[in-house]
């Protein structure tokens, strides 16, 4: 806002003529939008398949949810109520608006209009393409609204079918960890909700809640009580599943609330739906319990099979590691290594941890000993583990076609170690990089200067306690 304009309208509640104009325009737009929404709702009522939109902002979703609520409602009473709610929520957002707010609002409305068009197009597409597109991630809140609006429109049979499919899925992957099950279930729940099977999600949520309730109350299914010792396990799994369905549950809760709010006129209907849900829930809970039992049995079998097998499978690289350790101990004495192990996560690479004082000696031996002859430095870097620094080297021997990792732990307060650049020229820049980003000093390095950051940079960025000191940042 320019100073001049301020001067012209010093008394008009801080609003210039222009702003007032804008406000009026915005209001007009809002009204137009309201009409458009109604028209849209009518259209949607005719077309039960709701459109799925890619990339919607929260705000847009809210608006959409409101619009769909109208369309999706099967009863006129509900529709009226939804309209009332929508109407109530609309003017609430129009108290005194600053210029910026007005702008935002106008922009939002413009978006909403664009959205309307997009929706229509999408709906047309949807009609042709029965396979619904999966939507981008929606937040919990958005899901709640959407699910609440759509829930009613969904067929009971579809829900049941989906539940069955899900349970089959869950049963087919019994060896996944608890956490994975959790995540997968979450994914599934999300996917279902997104694919507009909100009813399915609801049923699942109800089922999960029901299952949990049953268990908590001690009214466990026969399959669960079969093994008293395993009951806890089953409970935990079921709880995890229940938690996984949290989002869907929330949606169901939102719906229930909406129904309650709607008042006594709908009480009978609610009860009916509740019965349906109960029946569904019982069926689903049983299926779930069966799946859990299956999973448990499979897991047990797997454990039983694996436990004795585990120690019988040493890494194919174990002999190499033994050789390295043997040579190093023969040549340099028994106390130069802190640790030596096979790193199973890293393609079974033999890993040596040198004591700080013997790091260079071991590196030297690794390169020059005829039995080892690691002539290639593949990788060299450092890590700040907060309690200490660690330098990690990956060597390769082209003669023996073997890899080895050599690590050394360095005291964080006097971060100094010996440079291995005299052994492998290739360590030159990586050591400079490590010095630059972590502040580890490599003694004997020919030119230990910064390489990534400017020479006058303060601090070492990859340290975990790094605070930027740059005045420009």
């Amino acid at each position, binding site marked *: 806002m320019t100073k001049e304009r301020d001067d012209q309208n010093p008394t008009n509640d801080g609003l210039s003529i222009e702003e007032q104009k804008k406000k009026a325009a915005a209001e007009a737009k809002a009204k137009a939008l309201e009409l458009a929404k109604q028209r849209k709702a009518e259209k949607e009522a005719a077309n039960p398949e709701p459109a799925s939109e890619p990339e919607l902002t929260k705000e847009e979703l809210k608006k959409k949810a409101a619009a769909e609520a109208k369309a999706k409602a099967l009863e006129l009473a509900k529709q009226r109520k939804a309209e009332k709610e929508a109407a109530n929520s609309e003017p609430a957002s129009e108290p005194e608006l600053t210029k910026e707010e007005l702008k935002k609002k106008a922009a939002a409305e413009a978006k909403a209009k664009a959205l309307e068009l997009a929706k229509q197009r999408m709906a047309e597409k949807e009609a042709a393409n029965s396979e619904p597109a999966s939507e981008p991630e929606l937040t919990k809140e958005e899901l709640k609204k959407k699910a609440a609006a759509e829930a009613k429109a969904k067929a009971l049979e579809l829900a049941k079918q989906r539940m069955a499919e899900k349970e089959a899925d869950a049963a087919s992957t019994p060896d996944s960890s608890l956490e994975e099950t959790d995540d*997968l279930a979450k994914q599934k729940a999300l996917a279902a909700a997104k694919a507009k099977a909100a009813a399915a999600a609801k049923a699942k949520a109800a089922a999960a809640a029901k299952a949990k309730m049953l268990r908590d109350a001690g009214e466990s299914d026969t399959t669960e009580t079969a093994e008293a010792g395993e009951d806890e396990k089953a409970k935990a799994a079921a709880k995890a599943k229940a938690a996984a369905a949290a989002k869907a549950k929330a949606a169901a809760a939102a719906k229930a609330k909406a129904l309650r709010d709607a008042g006594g006129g709908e009480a009978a209907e609610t009860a009916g739906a509740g019965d349906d849900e109960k029946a569904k829930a019982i069926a689903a809970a049983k299926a779930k319990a069966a799946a859990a039992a299956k999973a448990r049995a499979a897991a047990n079998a797997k454990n039983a099979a694996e436990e004795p097998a585990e120690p019988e499978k040493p890494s194919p690289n174990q002999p190499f590691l033994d050789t390295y350790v043997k040579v190093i101990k023969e040549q340099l004495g028994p106390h130069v290594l802190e640790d030596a192990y096979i790193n199973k996560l890293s393609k079974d690479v033999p890993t040596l941890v040198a004591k700080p004082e013997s790091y260079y000696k071991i590196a030297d031996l690794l390169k020059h000993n005829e039995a080892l002859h690691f002539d290639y430095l593949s990788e060299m870097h450092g890590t700040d583990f907060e309690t200490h620094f660690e330098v990690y080297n990956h060597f390769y021997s082209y003669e023996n076609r073997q890899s080895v990792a050599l690590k050394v732990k360095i005291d964080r307060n006097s971060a100094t170690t010996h440079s291995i650049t005299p052994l*492998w020229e290739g360590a030159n*820049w990586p050591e400079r990089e490590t010095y630059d*980003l972590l502040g580890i000093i490599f003694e004997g390095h020919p030119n230990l200067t910064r390489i990534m950051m400017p020479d006058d940079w303060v601090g070492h960025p990859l340290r975990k306690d790094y605070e930027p000191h740059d005045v420009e940042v």
Partner: protein
Amino acid sequence: MIRTEEMLLNVGPQHPSTHGVFRIVLKIDGETIIEATPVIGYLHRGTEKLAENLQYTQIIPYTDRMDYLAAMTNNYVICHAVETMMNLEIPERAEFLRVIVMELGRIASHLVWFGTYLLDIGAMSPFLYAFREREAIINMLNEICGARLTFNYMRVGGVKWDAPEGWIEKVRDFIPYMREELAGYHDLVTGNEIFLNRVKGIGYYSKEEALNFSLSGANLRCTGTQWDLRKDEPYSIYSRFDFDVPVFHTGDAWARYQCRMQEIEESLKILEQAVEQFPEEGPVMAKVPRIIKPPKGEAFVRIESPRGEIGCYIASEGKKEPYRLKFRRPSFYNLQILPKLLVGENISNLITILGGIDIVLGEVDG
């Protein structure tokens, strides 16, 4: 008697022949380089620091921006590292798609190198041909993932998109076309007297030096070292394909040129087999948790990028972000030998030698 004196010459960081923002400070005596000091870091974006606050899937787009001429291999290396840690099994169709896009990327990368290298040393037309063919590849990659350079195509557990209809056929049709064009390149460039004079015997190093300086890729294979991670430490499904690793023994820019040109042919061979064996259907994503949490521990994996050995080190605390992420960037390691190669050379060979190493500055600076 001509009197010469030492002179300091600054090349870059905005010199076109440096293929990015690379600066080199030369001390020259007449036209002879007596000292060369590379200065890098102009494109340092702190990918590794940023990654410490990102989830694994969110890091993948950052890898596109390291080696932006072969982003598919960069995508793959981080996915491969996480998959190795989590011991994931990848659906076959996804592995095939990965191999196909990586090999297409390798060809595209070598084509850029071929074109710009020739441009650097004074031949204009090969550049135009090379970029025409590269455009065909870029269009195919664009079709499968919606981006021309920064693909963001791979995910932990598979790939983001399945091949659109007819895409595999396009790749199949591309193979003979590319072979024909490649023959044209050889007619145009490989036997050219001027070109041979510019590259033969230039930028020589021995096998021992190459190993000592941690060189990789064509820079290593030009010295007679038979080494290709696709062959020697097979990852993905490379062990299923029959291909050769071109090796040359002269250790000069000429050997590196031949190496890369033959690598295009070998990539075409792999593509041919991959397209032939491509599974009719199947998922392109493994069943992975929505939030990816590799187990606590560390892993280092390395694969063969067009520029050499690209590696990825992950230290995980079992959280959804890596505790430490480090990329072994081949261009960074390969560039180290440059000051050594330049000493005693005529200044006109600077570009021949630098270009021969095939660096990408996004990768050098991380």
